[in-house]
């Protein structure tokens, strides 16, 4: 096929160069006016960027709930810094009670936590010298929280009270927080889990996480709403051995529901530790080492009763899953 037949001209060598001066307008050289225009257009192009999020927010549904307004304060007006101390010397995994761990059960009932979520989970770990110990593990409420760092939409956030909460109205369900949590303390609503119908009527708050929202992440919220109202979290109230303490670092006081302790002193006196301290997550949950010796537990009696979800029969058609 010949070129001329297709109607295209064959340029002569050198043709380009001779034409060049006349076509400066299309050339890449930037004159001053051109540069100014470029900058102006660039500014115009970039200007709407900050407006975009606002537009998207405005177009969205109701503004998601974030935080809870005013943080809890001490009598003299300083912000509470919630803390939990778990005395492992007194934890026997509820072996002596012969029931599933009461802390887990109370938490599940109080928060209508769907199966198989154990926001405070009693792990049974091997002791170095043989035998086992029970370690009730709620969310560690890190002060350098890996989950908050990685969340793309600030759905999980640190509060002024030092706790870490999740706004299930904002969570997009990407689960990077679950990948980054070194304590395995985050749970996902994979489907429509069975929950009692009355829970669906509750007013949602990130401090209580009821009712559940499918496709979002949940975890222990440290019950700051209850503490603010002057009661203790479900798990603390329920512990038959009084092994769990809830307190405030700011006022330096904690209680297991009976006795009061000075947090700093209690921790120092009893060689308290935090889980995986080496990670630098700075948890707000402290452990006093032990294996139930204060309540007479035999370390060579392993096992605890499996956790139960009381409303399983009530929602027979609901989807369930395993961890």
């Amino acid at each position, binding site marked *: 096929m010949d070129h001329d037949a297709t109607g295209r001209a064959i*340029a002569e060598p050198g043709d380009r160069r001779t034409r060049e001066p006349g076509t400066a307008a*299309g050339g*890449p050289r930037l004159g001053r006016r051109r540069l100014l225009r470029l900058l102006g257009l660039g500014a115009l192009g970039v200007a709407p960027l900050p407006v975009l*999020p606002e537009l998207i927010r405005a177009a969205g549904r109701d503004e998601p709930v974030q935080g809870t307004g005013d943080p809890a304060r001490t009598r003299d007006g300083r912000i509470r810094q919630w803390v939990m101390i778990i005395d492992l010397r007194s934890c026997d995994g509820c072996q002596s009670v012969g029931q599933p761990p009461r802390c887990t059960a109370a938490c599940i009932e109080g928060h209508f936590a769907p199966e198989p979520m154990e926001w405070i989970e009693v792990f049974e770990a091997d002791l170095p010298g043989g035998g086992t110990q029970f370690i009730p593990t709620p969310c560690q409420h890190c002060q350098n929280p890996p989950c908050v760092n990685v969340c793309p939409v600030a759905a999980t956030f640190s509060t002024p009270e030092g706790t870490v909460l999740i706004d299930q109205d904002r969570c997009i369900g990407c689960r*990077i927080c679950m990948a*980054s949590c070194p304590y395995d303390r985050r749970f*996902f*609503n994979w489907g429509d889990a069975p929950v009692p119908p009355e829970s669906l009527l509750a007013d949602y708050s990130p401090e209580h996480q009821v009712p559940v929202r499918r496709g979002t992440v949940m975890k222990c919220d440290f019950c700051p709403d209850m503490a603010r109202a002057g009661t203790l979290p479900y798990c603390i109230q329920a512990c038959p051995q009084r092994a769990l303490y809830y307190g405030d670092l700011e006022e330096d006081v904690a209680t297991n529901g009976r006795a009061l302790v000075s947090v700093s002193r209690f921790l120092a006196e009893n060689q308290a530790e935090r889980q995986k301290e080496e990670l630098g997550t700075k948890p707000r949950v402290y452990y006093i080492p032990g294996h139930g010796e204060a309540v007479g537990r035999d370390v060579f009696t392993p096992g605890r009763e499996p956790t139960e979800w009381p409303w399983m029969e009530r929602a027979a058609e609901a989807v369930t899953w395993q961890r």
Partner: protein
Amino acid sequence: MAAVSAWRGRLEETALAPIRRTGLRYWALVAFLLAVLGWGAYAYWTQLRDGLVVTGMRDRISWGLYIATFVFFIGISHAGTLISAILRVSQARWRTPVTRMAEFITVVALVCGASFVIIDLGRPDRVLNVFAYGRWQSPIIWDVLAITTYLTASITYLFVPMIPDLALFRDRLAGRTSRWRGWLYRALAIGWDGTAAQWRSLGSAIGVLMILIIPIAVSVHTVVSWIFAMTMRVPWNSALFGAFFVAGAIFSGIAILIIVMAILRRGYHLDEYVTEKHFLYLGYLMAAFAAIMIYANISELVTHGYKMEEGVEFHFRQLFLTQFGALYWFYLLGGLVAPIVIALLPWTRNVRGMVAAALLVTMAMWIERYVIVVSGLRVPLMAYPPADYAPTWVEWSLLAAGLALFALLITLFTKVFPIIAVWEVAEEGEASTAAPGTDRRAVPETMELAGGTGR
């Protein structure tokens, strides 16, 4: 000049052929891919209806096949960057017949990869929250920024060098094709008629883009790896991850390019332009990257394995002996060692061998992504028995649909756009046939030919 003209004419006809003739086999392929996509749509609808509970993912292994596929697709998107940008910067002339395919793989793979992130979300309805409430600290936001930038740059990088070819299509197909095509080519050719000014603008645009796209591509796969490396999981806790992922991305990109090249070469009779040389050169590049990958793996495994920190022992056991043993050994031997062997042995050093190696590498790299994601999450964090993960039919279906989407987009693309960079091939071919040893500076004269219109 006559010989050159005849050669050129044949080249243009080759480029135009897919648009002029469409066989039954093509429609059968499209129908098949659409069927797979439809099946995937049904699977996704199931997932939307019931929630992610229909997948095999659970709290303890909370990412699986979707995220692995996302990483895989973002990885193969590096085909375009490497072939097109790096080889263009280094003025490797043999690249010209395959650049267009590589660039299109980039764009399509990015689209497919990004869609897997959406598929993985528990609340896809809230995906815009990423823009409304984005936090700069989150690796996912880095990903969103890097991938949108990369997608924009890749589309531009696909489009800009295609302008003269689009003008060719516009002129050669004018009146001989459907109205929408005529309109499309007219619009996309943006008034190209090959003037010197236009060539200069085009040259500078390509020059800037080919430099710009390399750091963007490197950043993209680095931040993809940081989704993992920024967490506190033992097997992911590695400073090497960024470089490792970039190397793996280019590695798998070359592999997928070889496969696409082989298919298009056979389907559209491109043997004259896409020659054995291209397969061999790409095969050697792939072998070189296999060596880099072997090095990276050794570096990673030895630094972790020598110290055997908490969790590493478990990880090594699952990687080499139990859970992921078969997959991981396939990856190491079939995916990394085999391509080098194939490139070294004279009797496998041919198109067939390279395509086989590329198939192995593609499979192995998907498996590698899968093993990285799942094995990393499987190492127990607390005192609980390790969880297990097996993808369900929904996940497999969506993987199939993702691959089908990838194939379908490329298939459709070949019917609309020039699959060979005509003017670049002409530039290279005519520079070497008409005037051997001609300096690159002399090329614009022949470039004029490529995009010239009836002035």
